[in-house]
């Protein structure tokens, strides 16, 4: 294909602006009349945010535990009281280990804490009293958290009784934990920013690939191609409206994140919107590129889901930490645009304008945007083949 500008100038009646405006107006009319576009752009973010904001929680709070007290005493009562006070646990007291085990099998409790018959007696001895902890290890993540929490409760309680007896516990070094950036360890705080990346991928890639395929499917593309319009104008005519729609979806998601879920936004909003715009371009580029291959809405939708949405969900570090993935998968994540955007979003929301994170990731996004949009421009021809 020859240089489009040259072809533009010589043959086409009317102007670039008139044609582009016509295409964009058409696209907006279609967006407003077709409830499915609006649904993907605004309803989908709403549902995903509500689902992940309220429904999914990676925090461990109110964990049901079984306390087995073989010989109740003042000490055991004081210890179980410590569990009752903790907001992490909902304890149930059983008399025998057997009963507690049955409760674990029935998934009524996640852990069993056993206080032996000689608990009170050994507590006063030189070595202190041991407790037995049995954790349901099916979900390894939760198991580790539960074990840690139980240890915490145990340690605090020991300290308390030591103080009550007028002497401090002989511990030369104490670990004092501080969690940065998300001091309350609320999973919402990192899920919701990551979700914005998923939503932008949906609007950018899925919606664009589908609406482009719709033009092929309904035969309107054939009619468009036989007008003086250039391929570049057709691409821009899709890019601009869905860019605007995507930024609308972004604004909605950010607003919900800040005001509904109270996720702190520590970075600057302009940087958030600038990097988001760049990511949206990448996503739109992916969607348009898919549409150069797939000419039915069904195929375009399938490809977009598998090539953009699922990787953004699984390989972006949105839920699953990239650092703990196998090396080969780690390498693959480098071509997933969402990976860079999730990093930027989580940094901007929770840490602030940390340029050392934002800049390299932004650069990577820019490279991907150029690649996808460039490929689209290369692959798109005013031909039916």
């Amino acid at each position, binding site marked *: 294909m020859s240089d489009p500008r040259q072809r533009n100038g010589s043959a086409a*009646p009317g102007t670039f602006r008139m*044609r582009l405006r016509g295409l964009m107006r058409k696209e907006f009319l279609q967006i407003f009349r077709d409830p499915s576009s609006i649904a993907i752009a605004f309803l989908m973010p709403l549902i995903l945010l509500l689902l992940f904001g309220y429904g999914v929680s990676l925090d461990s709070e109110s964990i049901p535990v079984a306390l087995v007290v073989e010989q109740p005493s003042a000490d055991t009562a004081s210890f179980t009281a410590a569990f009752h006070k903790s907001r992490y646990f909902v304890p149930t007291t059983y008399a025998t280990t057997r009963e507690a085990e049955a409760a674990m099998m029935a998934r009524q409790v996640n852990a069993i804490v056993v206080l032996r018959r000689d608990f009170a007696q050994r507590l006063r001895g030189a070595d202190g009293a041991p407790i037995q902890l049995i954790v349901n290890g099916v979900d390894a993540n939760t198991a580790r958290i539960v074990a840690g929490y139980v240890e915490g409760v145990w340690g605090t309680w020991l300290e308390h009784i030591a103080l009550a007896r007028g002497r401090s516990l002989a511990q030369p070094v104490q670990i004092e934990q501080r969690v940065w950036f998300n001091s309350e360890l609320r999973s919402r705080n990192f899920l919701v920013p990551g979700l914005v990346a998923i939503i932008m991928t949906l609007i950018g890639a899925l919606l664009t690939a589908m609406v482009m395929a719709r033009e092929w499917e309904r035969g309107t593309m*054939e009619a468009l191609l*036989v007008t003086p319009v250039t391929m570049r104008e057709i691409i821009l005519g899709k890019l601009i409206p869905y860019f605007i729609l995507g930024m609308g979806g972004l604004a909605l998601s950010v607003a919900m994140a800040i005001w509904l879920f109270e996720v702190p936004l520590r970075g600057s909003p302009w940087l958030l919107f600038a990097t988001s715009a760049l990511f949206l371009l990448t996503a739109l580029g992916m969607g348009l590129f898919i549409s150069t291959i797939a000419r039915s809405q069904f195929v375009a939708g399938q490809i977009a889901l598998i090539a953009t949405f699922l990787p953004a969900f699984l390989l972006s570090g949105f839920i699953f930490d990239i650092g703990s993935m196998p090396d080969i998968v780690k390498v693959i994540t480098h071509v997933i645009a969402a990976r860079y955007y999730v990093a930027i979003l989580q940094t901007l929301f929770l840490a602030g304008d940390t340029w050392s994170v934002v800049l390299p990731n932004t650069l990577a996004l820019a490279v991907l945007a150029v690649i996808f949009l460039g490929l689209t421009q290369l692959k798109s021809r005013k031909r039916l083949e």
Partner: protein
Amino acid sequence: MPPTAAAYQASPHSPAGPGDDTPLQFDQLSKAFRPNGRLVQALDKVSFRVRHGTVTGLIGPDSAGKTTLMRLAAGLLAPDSGSVTVLGKNATAQSLQVQAGIGYMPQRFGLYDDLTVQENLDLYADLQGVAHIDRADRYGELLQMAGLAPFTRRLAGQLSGGMKQKLGLACTLVRQPPLLLLDEPTVGVDPLSRRELWAIVDRLVRKENTTVLLSTAYLDEAERCDEVVLLHEGRRLDQGDPKTLRDRMLGRTYSLSAPNLSKRALQAHLSRAPGVLDALIQGEHVRLVMEEGTRPDLEQLLPGAEDASLTEAPPRYEDSFIALLKAQAQVHGAAPSPADPPAAAPPAAQTANAAAVIEADRLERRFGAFRAVKGISFAVSRGEVFGLLGANGAGKTTTFRMLCGLLPPSGGSLRVAGVDLRHAPAAARSRIGYMSQKFSLYSQLSVMENLRFFSSAYGLARERAQERMRWAMAEFALAPLADSASGELSLGYKQRLALACALMHEPDILFLDEPTSGVDPLARREFWQRINALAEAGVTIMVTTHFMEEAEYCDRLAIMATGEILTMGTPSAVKQHARTETLPDPTMEDAFIGLIEARAPAGTA
């Protein structure tokens, strides 16, 4: 008036001068496609010219290469070899200039269903670069011409087929193009809309000097063109003034009637008679086309027939097409020969009540507040061929679906094969066969697998299924293709397979929904031979069609509009309705249009 040019051959070596006289020229054009690795030669060294200020018809059945040719001219495809010159420019190398100069309407009109009439026009005006100050006048003119002025705010998706077609044309014409390419603009559109479209095209050519290349599968449209190019299997078979082509057949076409014989038996007999090229039922007569230099002899054709009469009939364009195709088939020697009347198996379960197999009484169907079918009554008796004709939206499809037990009626009573469809639709369904224009076959399955699937879908026992499959293979000459994927069959063979599938369970009633759309006239004749044989064997046939020729095959037909039956009767009786002093011998199309026009106020068809 266009010059009545004699047929002339386009020389492949003539200079491709950008002269005004030849806005469009094809030179040795070839194009092949490779669907699933199989080579399909869509066009094979096609050359011809389109003269300025004429309507040239590109005529041929589906898969003749019409759409490929149109797309090549519009610069949407690049040829494998050869070239297309459009308005002095090469359509491949200078596609954007070409596209800026022409108007092109693809088969599906290129309309946005979720945009209004006005918004569609605005879009194309923007894309075509029509200056804003010129728009009001142009819009007014186009809307007036298309009869869409009252509907500018209606969504294009809510227009009828005929209105969509006219809007599509209006969008193509926003910037009055000197050359207009119309790809099957009349396919799937009712006769009234077809006639209106032709009026627009004629006006463009006569008044505005536009050049039009129009493709169509309807042979009767050839006669409206200044010149026709006949395309068949990617090759140009013939070209010329349709009148000249038609007049070649002068003296070879006759009309024969024999009141004592059934018209179907008569046609079956005559089509095998020596010297007969083509025999076609037309009302109460059989129309004959004789081989060149053969005169029909009544004694020889129908020995012993007493009151048979034979008169010469005016030739039609289709006759010359049939003659050409038959000559081709002889040259290639590969023509399927279903000439013997197919010995269709008699229906398994003969209905005791031979009087009426389908009985509809005040049949009604509502969709919400909309009455799609408004209390129609009719009865079809055993072995009868009954046709339903009507414009898009007349209620044909809804009626059909109710008859097949796919849609429960909202009111009235309906008995099919003696079963009340409101109570036992499944029982009735096992007695009916259904075939639609879409040929609902599984394209990835082979011929054999499709037959096996439909046998099992109809619940045939193993031995019976085997027997029926053998029957289908022999009857429809499908055996050599048993292992071919059905998606790769030619249209004619797909149609045969679809009919075979619909007949696997030997139904008493056969429903045909526009069964021969787009197939070539030879395949259509072959198809109707089979249908006629089935009817003779006692199968009741119910058919919807847009082809007026098919209407002639029916014993009786009903013309529907807006959910009602306007008229019902034999083809001759229906045609009699339209008889006036100015039109002493109306065609079925005249009758149809007359009835619809008398009924519906203009613009709401």
